[in-house]
Protein backbone atom coordinates (compact mmCIF):
# COMPACT_ATOMS: atom_id res chain seq x y z
CA UNK A 1 0.00 0.00 0.00
CA UNK A 2 2.75 2.36 0.95
CA UNK A 3 4.70 1.40 -2.11
CA UNK A 4 1.91 2.24 -4.52
CA UNK A 5 1.32 5.74 -3.23
CA UNK A 6 4.88 6.68 -2.36
CA UNK A 7 6.13 7.35 -5.87
CA UNK A 8 3.66 10.06 -6.87
CA UNK A 9 4.11 11.64 -3.46
CA UNK A 10 7.88 11.73 -3.86
CA UNK A 11 7.52 13.16 -7.36
CA UNK A 12 5.17 15.91 -6.19
CA UNK A 13 7.39 16.78 -3.23
CA UNK A 14 10.48 16.97 -5.43
CA UNK A 15 8.70 19.18 -7.97
CA UNK A 16 7.39 21.48 -5.24
CA UNK A 17 10.84 21.75 -3.68
CA UNK A 18 12.39 22.63 -7.04
CA UNK A 19 9.74 25.33 -7.55
CA UNK A 20 10.49 26.66 -4.08
CA UNK A 21 14.19 26.99 -4.88
CA UNK A 22 13.34 28.64 -8.19
CA UNK A 23 10.94 31.20 -6.70
CA UNK A 24 13.19 32.15 -3.82
CA UNK A 25 16.30 32.02 -6.01
CA UNK A 26 18.55 31.13 -3.09
CA UNK A 27 19.98 27.91 -1.75
CA UNK A 28 21.09 28.85 1.78
CA UNK A 29 20.42 26.53 4.70
CA UNK A 30 17.57 28.63 6.24
CA UNK A 31 15.78 28.86 2.90
CA UNK A 32 16.02 25.11 2.30
CA UNK A 33 14.74 24.32 5.81
CA UNK A 34 11.83 26.73 5.42
CA UNK A 35 11.19 25.18 2.02
CA UNK A 36 10.87 21.73 3.55
CA UNK A 37 8.36 23.07 6.09
CA UNK A 38 6.30 24.89 3.44
CA UNK A 39 6.32 21.93 1.05
CA UNK A 40 5.14 19.69 3.84
CA UNK A 41 2.33 22.12 4.71
CA UNK A 42 1.20 22.45 1.08
CA UNK A 43 1.17 18.68 0.56
CA UNK A 44 -0.69 18.22 3.82
CA UNK A 45 -3.33 20.71 2.65
CA UNK A 46 -3.82 19.38 -0.88
CA UNK A 47 -2.84 15.71 -0.99
CA UNK A 48 -6.01 14.18 0.43
CA UNK A 49 -8.30 16.26 -1.75
CA UNK A 50 -6.61 16.35 -5.11
CA UNK A 51 -4.30 13.37 -5.32
CA UNK A 52 -4.96 10.44 -3.01
CA UNK A 53 -8.72 9.98 -3.22
CA UNK A 54 -9.34 12.59 -5.83
CA UNK A 55 -12.67 14.31 -5.49
CA UNK A 56 -13.62 14.27 -9.16
CA UNK A 57 -13.33 10.52 -9.69
CA UNK A 58 -16.80 9.03 -9.50
CA UNK A 59 -15.78 5.38 -9.55
CA UNK A 60 -12.63 3.63 -8.56
CA UNK A 61 -9.50 4.31 -10.54
CA UNK A 62 -5.99 5.49 -10.07
CA UNK A 63 -6.14 9.29 -10.04
CA UNK A 64 -2.44 9.69 -10.44
CA UNK A 65 -0.34 7.59 -12.81
CA UNK A 66 3.14 6.39 -11.96
CA UNK A 67 5.66 8.01 -14.29
CA UNK A 68 8.79 6.44 -15.68
CA UNK A 69 11.80 8.49 -14.76
CA UNK A 70 13.92 8.48 -17.93
CA UNK A 71 11.15 9.33 -20.41
CA UNK A 72 10.00 12.03 -17.98
CA UNK A 73 13.40 13.69 -18.12
CA UNK A 74 13.69 13.51 -21.90
CA UNK A 75 10.05 14.48 -22.42
CA UNK A 76 10.45 18.30 -22.41
CA UNK A 77 12.94 18.25 -25.30
CA UNK A 78 10.69 16.24 -27.61
CA UNK A 79 7.75 18.35 -26.54
CA UNK A 80 9.52 21.62 -27.31
CA UNK A 81 10.66 20.30 -30.69
CA UNK A 82 7.08 19.35 -31.51
CA UNK A 83 5.95 22.77 -30.33
CA UNK A 84 8.41 24.69 -32.48
CA UNK A 85 7.62 22.77 -35.67
CA UNK A 86 3.85 23.17 -35.20
CA UNK A 87 4.26 26.86 -34.39
CA UNK A 88 6.24 27.38 -37.58
CA UNK A 89 3.51 25.77 -39.68
CA UNK A 90 0.75 27.87 -38.13
CA UNK A 91 2.82 31.05 -38.48
CA UNK A 92 3.14 30.34 -42.20
CA UNK A 93 -0.64 29.91 -42.40
CA UNK A 94 -1.21 33.23 -40.63
CA UNK A 95 1.21 35.20 -42.79
CA UNK A 96 0.30 33.85 -46.22
CA UNK A 97 -1.40 36.46 -48.39
CA UNK A 98 -4.73 34.69 -48.79
CA UNK A 99 -6.21 32.78 -45.88
CA UNK A 100 -7.89 29.59 -47.03
CA UNK A 101 -8.72 27.52 -43.98
CA UNK A 102 -10.51 24.21 -43.66
CA UNK A 103 -11.17 23.91 -39.95
CA UNK A 104 -12.84 20.81 -38.56
CA UNK A 105 -13.89 19.32 -35.25
CA UNK A 106 -12.99 15.65 -35.14
CA UNK A 107 -13.21 12.94 -32.52
CA UNK A 108 -10.07 11.00 -31.73
CA UNK A 109 -10.34 7.85 -29.61
CA UNK A 110 -7.39 7.34 -27.35
CA UNK A 111 -5.99 4.18 -25.84
CA UNK A 112 -4.94 5.83 -22.60
CA UNK A 113 -6.92 4.45 -19.68
CA UNK A 114 -5.71 6.69 -16.90
CA UNK A 115 -7.79 9.83 -16.69
CA UNK A 116 -5.05 12.15 -15.47
CA UNK A 117 -2.79 11.04 -18.30
CA UNK A 118 -5.66 11.65 -20.72
CA UNK A 119 -6.09 15.17 -19.34
CA UNK A 120 -2.35 15.79 -19.71
CA UNK A 121 -2.58 14.61 -23.31
CA UNK A 122 -5.52 16.97 -23.91
CA UNK A 123 -3.55 19.90 -22.51
CA UNK A 124 -0.60 18.98 -24.67
CA UNK A 125 -2.84 18.94 -27.76
CA UNK A 126 -4.15 22.38 -26.80
CA UNK A 127 -0.63 23.72 -26.40
CA UNK A 128 0.41 22.53 -29.83
CA UNK A 129 -0.70 25.19 -32.33
CA UNK A 130 -3.05 23.91 -34.96
CA UNK A 131 -5.01 21.64 -32.66
CA UNK A 132 -7.30 22.58 -29.77
CA UNK A 133 -9.15 20.26 -27.42
CA UNK A 134 -12.75 21.40 -27.14
CA UNK A 135 -14.11 18.63 -24.95
CA UNK A 136 -13.30 15.18 -23.69
CA UNK A 137 -15.54 12.17 -23.48
CA UNK A 138 -13.75 10.86 -20.44
CA UNK A 139 -15.57 7.54 -19.82
CA UNK A 140 -14.98 6.41 -23.42
CA UNK A 141 -11.56 8.05 -23.83
CA UNK A 142 -12.53 10.26 -26.72
CA UNK A 143 -11.17 13.74 -27.39
CA UNK A 144 -12.99 16.30 -29.51
CA UNK A 145 -10.32 18.28 -31.29
CA UNK A 146 -10.69 21.45 -33.31
CA UNK A 147 -8.09 21.42 -36.07
CA UNK A 148 -7.15 24.72 -37.65
CA UNK A 149 -6.50 23.41 -41.13
CA UNK A 150 -7.07 19.91 -42.43
CA UNK A 151 -4.63 20.56 -45.24
CA UNK A 152 -3.93 18.06 -47.96
CA UNK A 153 -3.69 15.05 -45.66
CA UNK A 154 -7.25 15.45 -44.43
CA UNK A 155 -8.34 13.95 -41.13
CA UNK A 156 -5.60 11.34 -41.18
CA UNK A 157 -2.87 13.97 -41.01
CA UNK A 158 -4.29 15.47 -37.82
CA UNK A 159 -4.94 12.04 -36.35
CA UNK A 160 -1.37 11.01 -37.11
CA UNK A 161 -0.09 14.05 -35.24
CA UNK A 162 -2.30 13.21 -32.25
CA UNK A 163 -1.13 9.59 -32.37
CA UNK A 164 2.48 10.72 -32.15
CA UNK A 165 1.79 12.76 -29.02
CA UNK A 166 -0.28 9.92 -27.57
CA UNK A 167 2.44 7.36 -28.21
CA UNK A 168 4.94 9.47 -26.30
CA UNK A 169 2.47 9.92 -23.44
CA UNK A 170 1.97 6.18 -23.30
CA UNK A 171 5.69 5.68 -22.99
CA UNK A 172 5.68 8.12 -20.10
CA UNK A 173 3.21 6.40 -17.81
CA UNK A 174 3.38 2.93 -16.42
Amino acid sequence: MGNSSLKPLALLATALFCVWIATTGRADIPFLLTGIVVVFAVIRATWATFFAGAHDFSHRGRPWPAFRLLPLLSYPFFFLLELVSATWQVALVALQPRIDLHPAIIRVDSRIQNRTALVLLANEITLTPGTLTIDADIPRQGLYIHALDLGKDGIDGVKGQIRRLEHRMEGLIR
Partner: protein
Amino acid sequence: MSAMFFGLSTVFMAAGLFFAFASVVGVIRFPDVYTRLHASTKALSGGAMMILAGTAFRAAATGNWPAMVKTLLIAAFLLATNPLASHAIARACYHHGIVPKGTVIDEYAETVRGDRS
Protein backbone atom coordinates in the same frame (compact mmCIF):
# COMPACT_ATOMS: atom_id res chain seq x y z
CA MET B 1 30.84 30.54 -23.33
CA SER B 2 29.36 33.85 -22.39
CA ALA B 3 29.55 35.13 -25.98
CA MET B 4 27.77 31.99 -27.18
CA PHE B 5 24.95 32.52 -24.69
CA PHE B 6 24.73 36.13 -25.79
CA GLY B 7 24.39 35.20 -29.46
CA LEU B 8 21.84 32.49 -28.68
CA SER B 9 19.75 34.96 -26.70
CA THR B 10 19.76 37.41 -29.60
CA VAL B 11 18.64 34.71 -32.02
CA PHE B 12 15.88 33.51 -29.71
CA MET B 13 14.60 37.03 -29.05
CA ALA B 14 14.40 37.81 -32.75
CA ALA B 15 12.57 34.56 -33.46
CA GLY B 16 10.20 35.22 -30.57
CA LEU B 17 9.41 38.70 -31.85
CA PHE B 18 8.63 37.23 -35.26
CA PHE B 19 6.28 34.61 -33.81
CA ALA B 20 4.55 37.12 -31.55
CA PHE B 21 3.91 39.38 -34.52
CA ALA B 22 2.68 36.45 -36.64
CA SER B 23 0.29 35.38 -33.92
CA VAL B 24 -1.16 38.87 -33.55
CA VAL B 25 -1.64 38.99 -37.31
CA GLY B 26 -3.40 35.66 -36.99
CA VAL B 27 -5.66 36.96 -34.21
CA ILE B 28 -6.68 39.81 -36.48
CA ARG B 29 -7.05 37.89 -39.76
CA PHE B 30 -8.59 34.55 -38.77
CA PRO B 31 -12.36 34.31 -39.25
CA ASP B 32 -13.86 33.14 -35.93
CA VAL B 33 -13.16 32.59 -32.22
CA TYR B 34 -11.87 29.04 -32.52
CA THR B 35 -9.30 29.78 -35.20
CA ARG B 36 -8.25 32.91 -33.32
CA LEU B 37 -7.60 30.71 -30.28
CA HIS B 38 -5.09 28.78 -32.37
CA ALA B 39 -3.27 32.00 -33.13
CA SER B 40 -3.41 32.96 -29.46
CA THR B 41 -1.79 29.67 -28.50
CA LYS B 42 0.99 30.46 -30.92
CA ALA B 43 1.69 33.74 -29.15
CA LEU B 44 2.47 31.59 -26.13
CA SER B 45 4.29 28.62 -27.61
CA GLY B 46 6.31 30.53 -30.17
CA GLY B 47 6.57 34.09 -28.98
CA ALA B 48 6.61 33.87 -25.21
CA MET B 49 8.66 30.68 -24.95
CA MET B 50 11.36 31.93 -27.31
CA ILE B 51 11.63 35.39 -25.77
CA LEU B 52 11.77 33.86 -22.29
CA ALA B 53 14.46 31.46 -23.52
CA GLY B 54 16.35 34.47 -24.84
CA THR B 55 16.00 36.18 -21.47
CA ALA B 56 17.24 33.05 -19.72
CA PHE B 57 20.27 32.83 -22.00
CA ARG B 58 21.01 36.50 -21.42
CA ALA B 59 20.82 35.96 -17.65
CA ALA B 60 23.13 32.96 -18.02
CA ALA B 61 25.57 35.03 -20.07
CA THR B 62 25.90 37.48 -17.20
CA GLY B 63 26.16 34.65 -14.68
CA ASN B 64 22.91 35.52 -12.91
CA TRP B 65 21.72 31.96 -12.27
CA PRO B 66 18.76 32.76 -9.94
CA ALA B 67 17.29 35.04 -12.61
CA MET B 68 17.70 32.31 -15.21
CA VAL B 69 15.91 29.73 -13.08
CA LYS B 70 13.13 32.21 -12.34
CA THR B 71 12.68 32.91 -16.05
CA LEU B 72 12.32 29.19 -16.71
CA LEU B 73 9.75 29.09 -13.90
CA ILE B 74 7.76 31.85 -15.60
CA ALA B 75 7.80 29.82 -18.81
CA ALA B 76 6.66 26.70 -16.96
CA PHE B 77 3.76 28.51 -15.28
CA LEU B 78 2.67 30.03 -18.61
CA LEU B 79 2.78 26.61 -20.24
CA ALA B 80 0.76 25.09 -17.41
CA THR B 81 -1.98 27.71 -17.15
CA ASN B 82 -2.58 28.68 -20.77
CA PRO B 83 -4.13 25.45 -22.12
CA LEU B 84 -6.65 25.57 -19.25
CA ALA B 85 -7.86 29.00 -20.31
CA SER B 86 -7.92 28.18 -24.04
CA HIS B 87 -9.82 24.96 -23.54
CA ALA B 88 -12.31 26.51 -21.12
CA ILE B 89 -13.13 29.46 -23.36
CA ALA B 90 -13.46 27.23 -26.46
CA ARG B 91 -15.84 24.86 -24.74
CA ALA B 92 -17.85 27.71 -23.23
CA CYS B 93 -18.20 29.35 -26.65
CA TYR B 94 -19.44 26.12 -28.18
CA HIS B 95 -21.96 25.48 -25.43
CA HIS B 96 -23.10 29.07 -25.59
CA GLY B 97 -24.01 28.57 -29.22
CA ILE B 98 -21.28 30.27 -31.24
CA VAL B 99 -21.08 28.17 -34.39
CA PRO B 100 -17.60 27.69 -35.86
CA LYS B 101 -17.39 29.16 -39.36
CA GLY B 102 -16.70 26.98 -42.36
CA THR B 103 -15.99 23.70 -40.61
CA VAL B 104 -15.62 20.74 -42.92
CA ILE B 105 -16.63 18.20 -40.30
CA ASP B 106 -18.25 18.78 -36.91
CA GLU B 107 -18.39 15.58 -34.91
CA TYR B 108 -19.01 17.43 -31.66
CA ALA B 109 -22.38 18.92 -32.59
CA GLU B 110 -24.40 15.73 -31.95
CA THR B 111 -22.90 15.29 -28.50
CA VAL B 112 -23.83 18.80 -27.45
CA ARG B 113 -27.34 18.44 -28.85
CA GLY B 114 -27.73 15.16 -26.98
CA ASP B 115 -26.71 16.90 -23.76
CA ARG B 116 -29.12 19.75 -24.20
CA SER B 117 -32.25 17.71 -24.98
